[in-house]
């Protein structure tokens, strides 16, 4: 197991290098210039000086090598657009909020999605099942920005539950954005759990467990649920990555000062270092989430341990 983890951690290095290279190439493909803030052309000398200062006059492979070296020392470089701001500062200040929002939405999705799916599967084709699946279909189909807007309309404007519509301070301010962001993955988890549980319930080993006289409660909790969670764990890794990195819209609607705003504005402003820095960070998060998934997978399903080691 340790050997497996060490090898997986080692493999993240080339993945990150490729992510940097791709982002680097894509950003350079977009025409534009980080220093042009208006339509007015910058004098050629100033442009040259700026390019030299940030190393943009060097060939691309030198820029790439230098950037990789800086990342390795946890220096994401200065912002090209925002004066006197390092990318490290932006990450330190704003990233924890995005992490918290995405993490809470993820927990919300798991804590409500799994039981909802389990109840649906155990009461399959009952009104409870139909209601739960209707709810999760709706939750899955409606985009988060619409959910967020509806939440604000109903829970704040029509019936005031005391939730603020913006900011990220007390727990009251976190309820609506977390639920709005977590609703779709919750619905996805519920559907996934329902499907895999129904499939697991049909398995021969469940019949064996019942033939042994085990109590129904134990059959469900040990034999059915555990095996049904394996696909859920597989889906959970990318979902967590998506929630942390994809909360831009929700951050915008609820005016949460997360990292998403910087990400989008940096692309528009051609702020290469900010885009690169955030991309690397988010790539690392997705990679770590998938690593955790693989480790959990090995614990839940002993067969995979033998295949890999």
């Amino acid at each position, binding site marked *: 197991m340790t050997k497996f983890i060490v090898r997986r951690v080692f493999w993240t290095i080339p993945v990150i290098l490729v992510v940097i290279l791709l982002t680097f190439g894509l950003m350079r493909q977009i025409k534009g210039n980080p220093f042009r803030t208006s339509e007015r052309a910058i004098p050629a000398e100033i442009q040259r000086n700026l390019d030299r200062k940030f190393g943009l006059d060097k060939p691309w492979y030198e820029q790439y090598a230098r950037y990789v070296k800086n990342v390795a020392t946890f220096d994401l470089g200065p912002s090209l657009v925002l004066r006197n701001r390092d990318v490290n500062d932006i990450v330190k200040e704003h990233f924890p909020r995005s992490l918290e929002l995405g993490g809470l939405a993820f927990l919300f999705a798991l804590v409500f999605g799994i039981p909802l799916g389990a109840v649906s599967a155990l009461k399959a084709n009952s009104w409870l099942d139909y209601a739960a699946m209707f709810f999760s279909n709706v939750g899955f189909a409606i985009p988060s920005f619409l959910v967020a807007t509806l939440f604000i309309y109903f829970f704040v404007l029509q019936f005031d539950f005391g939730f603020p519509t913006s900011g990220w301070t007390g727990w009251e301010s976190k309820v609506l954005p977390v639920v709005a962001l977590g609703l779709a993955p919750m619905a996805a988890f519920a559907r996934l759990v329902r499907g895999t549980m129904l499939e697991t319930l049909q398995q021969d*080993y469940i019949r*064996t467990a019942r033939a042994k*006289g085990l109590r129904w409660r134990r059959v469900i909790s040990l*034999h059915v649920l555990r095996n049904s969670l394996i696909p859920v764990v597989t889906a959970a890794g990318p979902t967590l990555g998506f929630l942390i990195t994809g909360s831009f819209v929700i951050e915008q609607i609820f005016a949460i000062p997360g990292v998403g705003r910087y990400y989008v504005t940096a692309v528009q402003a051609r702020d290469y270092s900010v885009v690169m820095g955030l991309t690397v960070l988010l790539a690392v998060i997705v990679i770590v989430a998938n690593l955790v998934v693989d480790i959990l997978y090995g614990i839940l399903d002993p067969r995979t341990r033998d295949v890999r080691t």
Partner: protein
Amino acid sequence: MALLEVNDLSTHFFTREGEVRAVDGVTFSVERGKTLGIVGESGCGKSVTALSIMGLIPRPPAKIVAGSVVFDGQDLTKLPEKRLEDLRGREIAMIFQDPMTSLNPTLTIGLQITETIRRHYDVSKQDARKKAIELLEEVRVPRAANRLDDYPHRFSGGMRQRVMIAIALSCDPKLLIADEPTTALDVTVQASVLDLLDDLRHEHDMAMIIITHDMGVVAEAADDIVVMYAGQIVEHAGVQELFDRPEHPYTEALLGALPQLEGEGIREGRLTAIPGRPPDLINPPPACRFAPRCPYANENDTCTTHMPELREIRPNHWVRSAHPVSEREGSRLGTEVPV
């Protein structure tokens, strides 16, 4: 009184297409310490009969619509689920056809054995483990103590079936139901698993129901044989009697489909197949279900319009057919016509 008495058991599946009469008025009994073989082709209702005894039929769509299953004096069809759970694994154990899928792949086999023991007996984890090792040794799993913490995927099919047998024996049941216990195994492994089952049955003084489509399997292991066709019993006799003097055309055909590699009656040439298919069990016509495939039934026979009764053609030899061997013209039994 017999250990198990199945009386007029009917289990039907209620599907969108209609009511499937998977088991239709089946009656038999199993004496203590004896082995009953249930033989028939796939879909004849033999497995559903076993699952009905265990109370493990999938509900819905299946339902026991009539009859009783009296085990040790109590009717299992009337027991509440909790009481049935106490009986399962403790009094009646079952092993299944496919050992590759019958064990939970994510739990060690040690846990899958001990959880059965600890469900039915109040023993410590250590004692249950000790008992599990003894059981694995008894079913001849090599290096039993070392294999307890292994997962099922590290066992071969034959070894997994041995583990299933160990689980089934863990609480010393009075009745063991073996549903096609060797069908999924290599031919070389089949014999050793069958021998093991037979030995253990004697040692533990269990009664056994062995379900199979293979006449060869029941010939060795069973005391009595029930032949099922399309949800009904078509013939029921002692093993010697059934093999020596089969009466039902279906049984006759089954024996004709059995390859014989040694012995006096060695058959030459091709194996005979039974033409046609078993009937649809949704609203079957009130006729002998084997009539469409029966070489002796013709259109004017009453057996194509009336269901023949299961009748005792000789003492303890029951048959459901209008054309049993001994009543045919030129019968082997009556006139000693050479085969």
